């Protein structure tokens, strides 16, 4: 059985390899949103890790200060 966690990690990997280089760097945070998502999903699984990643992406806009923000 394919685990959702693996699928998520695979999709993020595809994004990081082939889609992200096409656009200019934009993430306000360290680690970047995609890096954060990978760590979070690896550590907490698809559900909770995915939720953390989603919250992070929603924080990543010009009205939030950004900066160093590691996975809890």
């Amino acid at each position: 059985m394919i685990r959702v966690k693996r699928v998520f990690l695979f999709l993020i990997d595809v994004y990081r390899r082939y889609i992200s280089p096409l656009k200019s760097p934009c993430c306000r945070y360290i680690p970047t949103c995609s890096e954060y998502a990978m760590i979070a999903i690896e550590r907490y699984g698809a559900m909770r890790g995915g939720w953390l990643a989603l919250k992070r992406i929603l924080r990543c806009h010009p009205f939030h200060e950004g900066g160093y923000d590691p996975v809890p």
Partner: protein
Amino acid sequence: MNLFDPLVQVFRLVFEGFYNLTAAVGFANYGIAIILMTILVKALMYPLTAKQVRSMKAMQELQPALKKLQKDYKNNPQLLQQKMAELYKEAGVNPLAGCLPLLIQMPILMGVYYCLYGYSYSGDPTFLWLTSLSDTDPLYVLPILSALTTYIQQKQTMANNGQDNQQMKIMSYMMPLFIGWISLNFPSGLVVYWVTMNLCQIAQQWYMFRGEKKLAVEVEDASASDKKKR
């Protein structure tokens, strides 16, 4: 039923509204309605980018502190990044726009795409040299424009990031060619939207990055004079 349907309905209403506006002014034209709608979409996203312009100005004031950090941590890029992030946070500025503004553009793009792709024009569908906004461009001018504007728009951001590797260079040609190629088969109305979007973006980026280019030169000058001292 499509996921973007509610958004498509909204765009359809806005599009028809703009068409009625052009009709009220005296020259009913769907092409102008598309351009007006594009400008409205871009204007709605303006608050996100205006904030960036302000933060870029503040970045100029941070330059001396940044240069000091770059000197102190030049052997540890990871720590340097972290220290720079802390400095940005303290000063309340950040040179990057974040992931969300890009992601917001996706559903908007899809909404406009579905709105214009299958649109059945009830009035005169001609625009400039185009015989119909729902057909492809018979003169291939629009596909060329879409490729060209995509290229220029990409080039602007790349020049500012100082990225110069081979992969990026190949990509900077691949993407415009790909856009031009798909434009060959798209209804002209959609390509008019795409070209207008690119032109707005180019104007906006030119305005936003005006100061930053000067800044990059200053930093280079400073590091050059540093080397001379040694």
